[in-house]
C-alpha cells in the first residue's frame, strides 16, 4: 500500500468552520482507494517545506488578520506553489483563505494586504458578513456534478480573468451578483464552500483522490462506497434551498432558489 501525502496548511492559524472534516474525508476516501493517507500539519515551525512532496495540499479559512503572517511565511514558496498548481496536483483552498492565494486583499479600512499571487483574483473585504447555503454545478476531473455546502462570506472576489469553479444554482458565490462560485485552476480548487464540502459531497472527494493518484501514476482500487446518506442529505438541503426566503437575486431564473 503506497502513502498518499496530504499537507494541511496552518491548521491552528487558519482554523475556522470545522474544516478539519475535509481532512477526515480525504483520508477516508484515500483509504478506500487503497492508500495509506498521511496528513502533515504545516505551520511556522515546519522546516524544509517542499510543496511538491505532497500529493494534495489543503488550506482552511482563517481570520483575515492572520493572513499577513501566513503570507510572509509562504511567500518564499510561491513559485513552488504555482508549480504545484500548474503540474495538475490538487491544492484545495476554502472560505476566506481563497483571498490569501490571490493577488491582493483590500480591507474595510482601505488598507491592503498582499496575497501570494498563485491566482490572479482580487478580494475586497465586506462591511457585513453573509452566511447562507450555496448550491452549484461544476466539472472536475471530467465529471459533471452538483455541490451543496455553506458559505460564510467575509469578502467579495473579483475573478480578474480566472475561471470560476462552479456555476451557481443558488447562493452568494464570489460576489452575490453573478453565478460565479470560486476559482478552478487546473485541478486546484479555490472555493467559498464550507460544509465540510468534502464530507457532504463525496463525489467530489473521490475525484480529487483519483486526480492525486493519476498524478502519481498509481493504479487505484475502485472506491466502493454507498453514498445514500450523503445523497439524502443533498436532497433535503436542496429542498430547503428551493423553498427558503432570501434576498439574493443572482440566481432567480434557476430552479435552485426562489
Amino acid at each position, binding site marked *: 500500500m503506497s502513502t498518499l501525502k496530504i499537507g494541511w496548511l496552518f*491548521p*491552528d*492559524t*487558519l*482554523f*475556522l*468552520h*470545522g*474544516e*478539519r*472534516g475535509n*481532512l*477526515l*474525508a480525504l483520508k*477516508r476516501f484515500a483509504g478506500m482507494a487503497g492508500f495509506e493517507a498521511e*496528513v502533515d500539519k504545516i*505551520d*511556522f*515551525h515546519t522546516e524544509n517545506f517542499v510543496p511538491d512532496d505532497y500529493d494534495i495540499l489543503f488550506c482552511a*479559512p*482563517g*481570520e*483575515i*488578520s*492572520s493572513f499577513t*503572517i*501566513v503570507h510572509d511565511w509562504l511567500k518564499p514558496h510561491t513559485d513552488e506553489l504555482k508549480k504545484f498548481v500548474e503540474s495538475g496536483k490538487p491544492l484545495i483552498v476554502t472560505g*476566506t483563505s481563497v483571498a490569501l492565494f490571490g493577488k491582493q486583499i483590500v480591507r474595510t479600512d482601505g488598507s491592503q494586504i498582499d496575497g501570494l499571487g498563485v491566482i490572479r483574483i482580487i478580494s475586497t473585504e465586506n462591511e457585513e*458578513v453573509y*452566511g*447562507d*447555503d450555496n448550491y452549484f454545478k461544476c466539472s472536475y476531473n471530467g465529471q459533471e456534478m452538483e455541490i451543496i455546502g*455553506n458559505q*460564510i462570506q*467575509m469578502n467579495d472576489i473579483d475573478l480578474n480573468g480566472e475561471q470560476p469553479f462552479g456555476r451557481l444554482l443558488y447562493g452568494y458565490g464570489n460576489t452575490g451578483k453573478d453565478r460565479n462560485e470560486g476559482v478552478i485552476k487546473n485541478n486546484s480548487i479555490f472555493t467559498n464552500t*464550507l*460544509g*465540510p464540502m468534502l*464530507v*457532504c459531497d463525496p463525489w467530489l472527494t473521490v475525484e480529487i483522490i483519483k486526480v492525486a493518484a493519476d498524478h502519481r501514476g498509481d493504479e487505484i482500487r475502485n472506491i466502493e462506497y454507498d453514498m445514500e*446518506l*450523503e445523497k*439524502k*442529505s443533498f436532497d*433535503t*438541503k436542496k*429542498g*430547503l434551498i428551493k423553498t*427558503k*426566503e*432570501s*434576498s*439574493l437575486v443572482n440566481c432567480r431564473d434557476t430552479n435552485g432558489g426562489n
Partner: protein
Amino acid sequence: MKFYLALWFAKLINFMISIVDKSRGTNLAGEKAMKIDPQMVSHFKGIDPEKVLFITGTNGKSTTNNLINHIFKSNGKTVVSNLEGANLIFGVCTALIKASSLGGRVKADFFIFETDERYVPVIRKQLPAANLLITNLQKDQVQRNGDPDYIYRKLKEAVSGGDIRLFLNNDEPRAKSFEDDGREVVTYGAEKHSEAFNKGDSYVTMACPKCHHKIVFDYYNTDGIGRFHCENCGHSSNDAADYSVTDADFINRKFKIGGVEFHMPYDTPYMIYNYAAAAAIAKELGGISLEDAAKSFTSFKNVGGRFEILNFKGKTIKYMRIKQENPETLQTSINVMANDPERKMVALGLCPLVDMIPHYANSFYAYDCDFSKLVNSDVEKYFCFSDHVCYDTANRFIYEGVDPAMISVADTEDVNVIFREIMEAETDNVYLITWLHTYEHMEKYIKEEGNK
C-alpha cells in the same frame, strides 16, 4: 424635552404590557423610546459609571449576570439589570426605564447589564461603564459575526482609551489578551479540575490574538478554555488568576476560591468560570467578602432551559441546550454524556439556523468537537433528528467510527417522532441535545401527553 416624552411614552408601554403579561416587554419600551430620543440611555440621571458593569462574551453572560445579581441582592445591594437577557441597547434602555422615576432619575447601588458582544461599543458610548467583564470570545453566530476576530475588533474599539477596569478570564486567550487595555485588570480562572480534558492531534486549537501563531492548551477545563500559551509571543494564562477556583469537587458539589469554601450550585464543569467571575465581581465591585458571597451560592437557581430533566413514561430525558454554530457548547454536552458511565441513548438535533433570513443548514461546527470519548462510552443507540441537518449529523458520528446500524435518522423535528424513538430505546437514560425551541415543544408535549 425629547427625553421626558420618550420616558413617559415608554412607561405607558410598560404599564400596558404589564397588564397583558409581566414577563414580556424586555425590549419594546426601550426600542420605541429610542426612536423619540436616540440618545436616551445617556440622559438618565443618578448613574455613577464607576458602579456600572457590562458583562459580555460568547458564553456565560446570562448565567454570570444572574449569579452576580443574586449575590449582590442577597447581600443587601440594590441592582438595576437586564436579567431577562435582552442584551442590546434597547434591553438596557428598557431596564433603566423600568427603574427610573418620572423625572428620569435612577436610584440603585449598582447597574449590571449583560451586553451583546457586538453592541458593547454602541452601548458604552451612551453609558460609559467603568467596569467590563469578558467571559470568553469564541466561534459563534458565524452567519452574522463571521469569525471571532470580527467581535474582537469591536470590543477593542469599546475599550479604547483605557479608562476602564477589566475583569478577564485568565484561561481564555482572546479575553486574556485585553490585559493591556484597562486601567486596572482583575483576572479570574480555575486550576485544572477532574473533568479537564485534551483533544487528539487532528483537532485544531486557535490563532493567538496577539501574533496569530498557534495557541497550545495544556488542558481544557471546558472547551476552548484552560491553561494556555502561545508558541511564539508568550501570551499565556497567568500562573494563578486573582480569583481562582481550586479544589473543585463535582461529586460533593463544592469548591474553593481564596481558601474559602463555596457550595457548587450546578455540577457542570463549564459553570466553574461563571462562579469565579461572580466571586471576583462581588469582591472588587460590590465590596462583598468571599465568605459572604459564598453564603449566596447555597440559594442560587439559574435561569431555566440550560440543563433540564424531563420524565416521560419511565424515561429520564436529560436535556442540554446548545447554541448552534458554537462548538464549545456542543463539546460541553458531549463531555457530560461521555462522563456518564451508564448505558445511554443519544438524541442529537443539530438544526438549521433560523435566527435571521436566510435560514441555512449548517453543521460544520460539529467537526471542531471531539466525540471520541462519547462513542467509546456505553451508548445503546444514536438518534439524529432535525429538518435538513439530520443526515449530516449522522455522518459526523460515522466519521467518529460509529457503526451506521446504531444510528437512526429522522428528517423532522416532530416531537411525536422524537418521543417514539425515545420509547423504543431499551435504556431509560436518554440525553437530548438540541436548541431550545425543540425542547420547549417536547416539554409542552409531556405536560399534555405525559400522563395519558
